[in-house]
C-alpha cells in the first residue's frame, strides 16, 4: 500500500494521512493508491502539512507498518528514548521498528 506522511507545519510533529486529515498515529494511515500527488499538492498548499511524501507500507495484524526503518522510527519515536515515543508505557514498542 501507499501511504502519506509529513510533518505538522507548526509543531513539526510526524503526521500520517488518514483519508480526511493528518493523524499522529501511523495505524490511522490509509492506502492512497494513485492519488498521492494530488493529495500532497492540496495539503501542502493548505499548509496542513510540511515536507510530505508517499511511502510504501504493509498492513498486517499489527497495523500499518512502513516499509523502511526510517519511517518506522518516525512513526514511533526515537528507539533510545522510549519515554518520548508515542507508546511510552510499552517497553516492547521498539521491537516493532527493527
Amino acid at each position, binding site marked *: 500500500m501507499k501511504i502519506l506522511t509529513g510533518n505538522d507545519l507548526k509543531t513539526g510533529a510526524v503526521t500520517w494521512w488518514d483519508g480526511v486529515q493528518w493523524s499522529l498515529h501511523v495505524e490511522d494511515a490509509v492506502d492512497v493508491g494513485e492519488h498521492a500527488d494530488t493529495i500532497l499538492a492540496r495539503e501542502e498548499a493548505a499548509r496542513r502539512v510540511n515536507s510530505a511524501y508517499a511511502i510504501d507500507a504493509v498492513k498486517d495484524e499489527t497495523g500499518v507498518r512502513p516499509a523502511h526503518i526510517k519511517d518506522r522510527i518516525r512513526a514511533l519515536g526515537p528507539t533510545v528514548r522510549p519515554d*518520548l515515543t508515542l507508546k511510552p508505557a510499552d517497553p516492547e514498542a521498539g521491537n516493532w521498528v527493527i
Partner: protein
Amino acid sequence: MYRYDQYDQAMVDTRVEEFRDQVRRRLEGHLPEEAFRPLRLMNGLYLQLHAYMLRVAVPYGTLNSAQMQVLGDIADKYDRGYGHFTTRQNIQYNWIKLEDAPDILADLATVEMHAFQTSGNCIRNTTSDQYAGAAADEVVDPRPYAELIRQWSTVHPEFNFLPRKFKMAVIASDTDRAAMRLHDIGIQIVKNESGELGAALYAGGGMGRTPMIAPCINPFVPIGQMITYAEACLRVYNRHGRRDNKYKARIKILVHELGKDEYTRQVEAEFAHLLTQNIEPPAAELERIKTFFADPPFETGIPDELDRSDPAFARWVDTNCLTHKQPGYIAVTISLKPVGGIPGDASADQIRLMGDLAKQYSFDELRVTHAQNIVLPHVKKADLYALWQVLEANGLGTPNLDLIGDIIACPGLDYCSLANARSIPVAQKISERLAPREAEIGELKLKISGCINACGHHHAGHIGILGVDRKGVENYQLLLGGCEGADTSLGQITGPGFDEDGIVGAVEKATEVYLANKQGEERFLDTYRRIGMAPFKEALYG
C-alpha cells in the same frame, strides 16, 4: 570570555525580529517552504525525523553560567527536558515547534547567543581547543583568534553562499585537541624563532564522503595578516569550488584536484592582492578582544597537592583531569557518557547544574568539547573533591575520558533525517559491554557515524563505525587506525560490515587482538600501527 558590544547585540536582536517576521509569513501562507527553508536554516532550524531541530552556536565551545541557565531553561520550556552537545561544540534541541523558534532565539539573545551559521553553505561555528587558556602546552590562548574569525565570518557578505559548508578550527599547541587538520581550514597559532606569533595554515581537510587530511599550505603567516590570508583561501575556494556537484563541492576536493601547490599559488596571489586592500581588522580590535580572555584572578601560593585517599576520586582525577598552567589549579572534563547512556545528551537540570558549578568553582567558565563532553577549565585543586562529589551525585562523574566508553556518536537514525542507521544504540551496547574493561584496554577513541556525512567523526576514531543502509537494513562498517591528533590519520575499513549485535562483537574482538599483541605501554592505536590490519582481519573474518 568575550562579551557582546552594542553592535553585536543589535545584530543579534535584529536577526531575531527578522526571523520572527519570516516565521509569521510562513505560518500565514505568504512564504512557501521552498522559500522559507533557506531562511530557517540560516537560523539553525532544521526539520528532522520527529520535529524541528534547533542548533545553537557556541563560539569555540565557550559558555558561562548564565548561558547554561538559559540553555537548560530552553530544554524545559520549549523542548523535552534535555539538550544534545555536538561535535562542533554546539548544542541542539530535537523537539522544537516552529511557532516557538523566534521566542527561543529571543531568549538566547538575552545571554549573547544565537544560531547564526549553524547550517547552510557558510562558515560554520569555529572550533578550538577545549583547554584554551588553561593548557600548559599552548603558545598563546587561541580564543582571541577564534573570536576574531567569528567576527570576520559572521554574516560575511562574500561567504554566505559558498559552494558548500565551511568549517574552521584554531589551536595553539602541538597537541591537537580539536581535530584541526580535519577541517576546511585549520589554523595553528605558532611562534617563530624570533618569538613572533604567526598562523600555520592548513587547507582542504575534512571527513564526510571523501575524507582528507589538510596539508599545510603556509607554515607561518604573520599574525597580523591571518584574516587576510584566510580570506584569500576562501576567495580561491569560492571562485573555483564545484557548485555543479554537492558531493564534490567542499574545499578538500578543490585542493586535491588542483594540487596543494597550485592551490597555494593561487592563494598567495590573492593574498598579495588583498594586502593592498587593507582588509585585515585593526590591531586595536584584536587587542580589545584579548582583554576578554585575560587570565581569571588565580590565587597564588595555594596547595598543588590532592588528597587521593578516596580511590574512586583518584581514578576520576587520573582519567578526567588535565594539568593546568597555573599551580594549584586543574582542568576538569565532565563526561556526558555514562555507561549505557546517550553520548552528548544532558538533562535540563544537568545543564543548569554544570552552569552553577562553573560559577562556583571555575571562574564562571565552561567549554563544550568536540568529543561531546563539558570542561570546567579552571578548578582550584582544593575544591576538586567537593566538585567531584556533586558530579557523582548527579550522574556526571563517569571516569572515562578517552577510554572506550567515551564514545562520540552522532544522533543517527533515531533523530537525523540524513542518517542511514542508528548510532546511539550501538554506542550504548559497546559502552555496556566494554566499560567494565576500560582500565585494561586503556586509551581508545571510538567514534560512530550513522551516515557517510561523518558527524560522528568515524574516520578519526582509533576504532570507527559507519552505519549504512543495506537494502533497508542497518549495517555497520568497522574502521581501524584513525586519529585526529598531531599525527592525524584516517581509519581503514576492515572488510564486510556487521549487523547491530555483530558490530559490538567485532569491536570486542578488535580490543582482544590489541590486548594480545600489545607491547609495553602501547595504546590501541600504537599497536594497530605496528602490527597493521592483518591480525585484526584474521580475528574478525578468519
